[in-house]
C-alpha cells in the first residue's frame, strides 16, 4: 500500500518537474538567443541595427532594416489575400455548410497545415513564379506603372509570389480559429435575430460576426505571426537578394527568416556575423511570442467569459 502511495507521490513530483521545464524552455530560448547576440549589441545600439539598411558583414555593417521591410511586405500581401478568403470560408463552414460537408472539408483544410513548407516552396517555384512573371507582372506593370506595381524585376521571384504562397499557408490557421469561435456563439442569438425578421446573411453579419469579432482578430493575429516567421517557402520564392528596400510588389524581398536560413555555413567565418543573425532570430522570437500571447490572451478571455 505504501509503495503505491510512494509511486504516486514520486510520479506527481516528476510530472511537476517536466511541466516547469516547459515554463523554463520559453525563457531559456529567449535568454540563449539574447546572450549570443550580445557581442553585436555591445558595439552597435539596437536602433542602428534595426533602422540601418547597410548590410556588409565583411565590413562589420549589420543593418537589418531592409530585411525587416522585406518581412513586412510579404506578410502584408499574404494577409490581404488570406484574411477575407479565410473569414468567408469560416463563415460558410460554420453557418451555411451542411454538417456532412463541414465534416468532410475540415480535415481537408487541416491537410494544408500538414504540408511541408518546402513543398509550398516547390509549388511556388513551379506554379506561382510563372504566373506572376508571365501574367500578373506584365499586366499590372504596364497598365498601372506606379506604386506599388512599378518594377523592373522580371524574374517572377517577388514580394507578391512570396505573399501568395504564404497566404495559402496561413489559410488553415485563420479558418480553424475563426470557425471554432463562431461556433461558440450561442444558437439562441441566431434564433433571436431571425425571429426579428433578419435574413440569414443579416444575422451572420450583424450578430454572429459581431459577437465573434475578438476571436476573429485573434485568428488573424495568429495567421500574421505564422506568416512573419515562415522561412523555407519564402526563401525559395521571394527572390532573396540584396537590393535594399522593396518598392513594389514585383520587387524581390529578403525577409528576416530567410536571412537566418541563408547565412547557414558562412556565419561562423566572419566576426560578429553569428551575433547579428542570432539577433535576428531573437527579434523574430520576441515579435511572434508577443503576437501569440496577445491572440491566446484574447481567446482565453472568450473561453472564460463565454460569448
Amino acid at each position: 500500500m505504501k509503495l503505491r502511495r510512494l509511486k504516486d507521490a514520486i510520479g506527481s513530483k516528476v510530472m511537476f518537474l517536466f511541466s516547469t521545464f516547459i515554463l523554463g524552455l520559453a525563457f531559456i530560448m529567449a535568454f540563449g538567443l539574447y546572450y549570443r547576440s550580445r557581442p553585436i549589441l555591445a558595439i552597435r545600439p539596437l536602433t542602428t541595427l534595426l533602422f540601418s539598411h547597410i548590410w556588409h558583414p565583411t565590413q562589420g555593417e549589420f543593418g537589418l532594416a531592409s530585411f525587416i521591410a522585406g518581412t513586412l511586405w510579404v506578410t502584408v500581401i499574404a494577409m490581404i489575400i488570406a484574411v477575407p478568403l479565410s473569414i468567408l470560408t469560416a463563415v460558410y463552414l460554420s453557418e451555411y455548410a451542411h454538417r456532412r460537408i463541414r465534416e468532410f472539408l475540415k480535415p481537408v483544410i487541416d491537410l494544408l497545415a500538414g504540408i511541408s513548407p518546402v513543398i509550398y516552396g516547390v509549388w511556388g517555384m513551379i506554379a506561382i513564379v510563372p504566373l506572376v512573371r508571365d501574367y500578373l507582372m506584365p499586366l499590372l506593370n504596364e497598365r498601372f506603372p506606379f506604386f506599388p506595381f512599378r518594377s523592373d524585376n522580371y524574374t517572377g521571384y517577388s514580394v507578391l509570389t512570396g505573399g501568395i504562397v504564404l497566404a495559402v499557408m496561413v489559410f488553415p490557421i485563420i479558418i480553424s480559429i475563426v470557425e471554432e469561435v463562431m461556433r461558440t456563439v450561442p444558437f439562441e442569438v441566431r434564433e433571436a435575430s431571425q425571429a426579428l425578421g433578419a435574413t440569414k446573411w443579416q444575422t451572420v453579419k450583424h450578430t454572429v460576426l459581431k459577437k465573434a469579432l475578438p476571436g476573429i482578430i485573434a485568428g488573424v493575429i495568429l495567421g500574421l505571426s505564422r506568416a512573419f516567421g515562415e522561412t523555407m517557402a519564402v526563401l525559395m520564392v521571394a527572390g532573396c537578394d540584396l537590393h535594399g528596400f522593396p518598392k513594389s510588389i514585383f520587387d524581390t524581398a529578403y525577409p528576416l527568416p530567410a536571412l537566418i536560413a541563408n547565412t547557414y555555413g558562412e556565419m561562423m567565418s566572419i566576426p560578429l556575423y553569428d551575433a547579428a543573425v542570432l539577433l535576428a532570430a531573437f527579434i523574430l522570437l520576441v515579435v511572434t511570442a508577443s503576437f501569440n500571447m496577445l491572440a491566446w490572451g484574447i481567446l482565453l478571455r472568450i473561453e472564460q467569459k463565454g460569448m
Partner: protein
Amino acid sequence: MLISTVFVVGSLAFILVVIFLKGFPALSLNMLIQTPRGGYYLGKEGGILNAILGSLVLGLGATLLALLISLPIVFYLNIYLAKSSKFAQLIRFFFDVLWGIPSIVYGAFGFTIMVFFGLRASLLAGTVTVALFILPIMSRAMDEVLKMVPFELKETSYALGSTRLETALKVILRQALPGILTAILVAFGRGISDAASVLFTASFTDSLPSSPFKPVATLPLAIFFQLATPFPEVQQRGYASAVVLTVIVLVISVVSRITSKRFTKHVVK
C-alpha cells in the same frame, strides 16, 4: 463564401496536382534505393535514400523524445491538477505561445545550445531541436484528447481505490489511446516535413545515418538543395523528391485518421 471555400480547397488540390504532375515522370526506383554518388548534384548517378532514411530516423527519434516529455505533462495537467488550476492554465498558455514560434527560431536556439555544449551539427542535435519544435504541437493535441475523457471514468477508478498514477496509466491512457496515437502521428508528420529547424543543427550529408554524432540528411533539405542547383536534371530529381515527401505526409495523415477510428478496443463508450 462558397467561392472562397472552393478557392481554399482548390489551392490544396492545385498544390498536389502540380507536385505530382511535375514530379512523377522523374521518379524512379533507383532514386529511392541509392545514395548520392560522386557528382550527384551535377546530374550524375544516385538517389536520395540518405535523405529518406535520415528524415525517418530523425523524425522517429524526435517524436519519441517529445512523447517522453509531453505525456507526463498532459497527465499532470488533466489528472493531478484541478480544472480551475492557475498553474495548468499557465502551462497551457505557454504551450500555445511556444506553438506559434517559428521553426527557424527553434533552429537558431538549437544552434546556440550546440555551441554551448561544444557539439557539431549532428543527428543528435537535430533530433533534440525537432523534438522541442514538435513538443507544443503534440502536447496541445494530447491535452485536447485528455480533456474529452469523461469525468466519471476518473471517479470510478478512484472509488475502486486506485491512486492517481494508476488511474492515469491504466485507465485514462487506454481510454485516450486512439487520440494520443493521432497526436503522435501529427507531430511526427510536422517533424519530418520541417526544414528550417534542421538546417543548422543536423546539417546535411551524402551518406546514410550512422552515428548520432555525425550530420544527417533530411528530405526537405534534399529537395531544397536539389532545386538550388542550376542543372535541370537535378531539379527534376528535386521535384521527384517533393513527391516522395508529399506522399509520406499524406500517408501519415490518412493513417492518423484510421488510428483515431481503430485501436478502440479498450475505449469505454
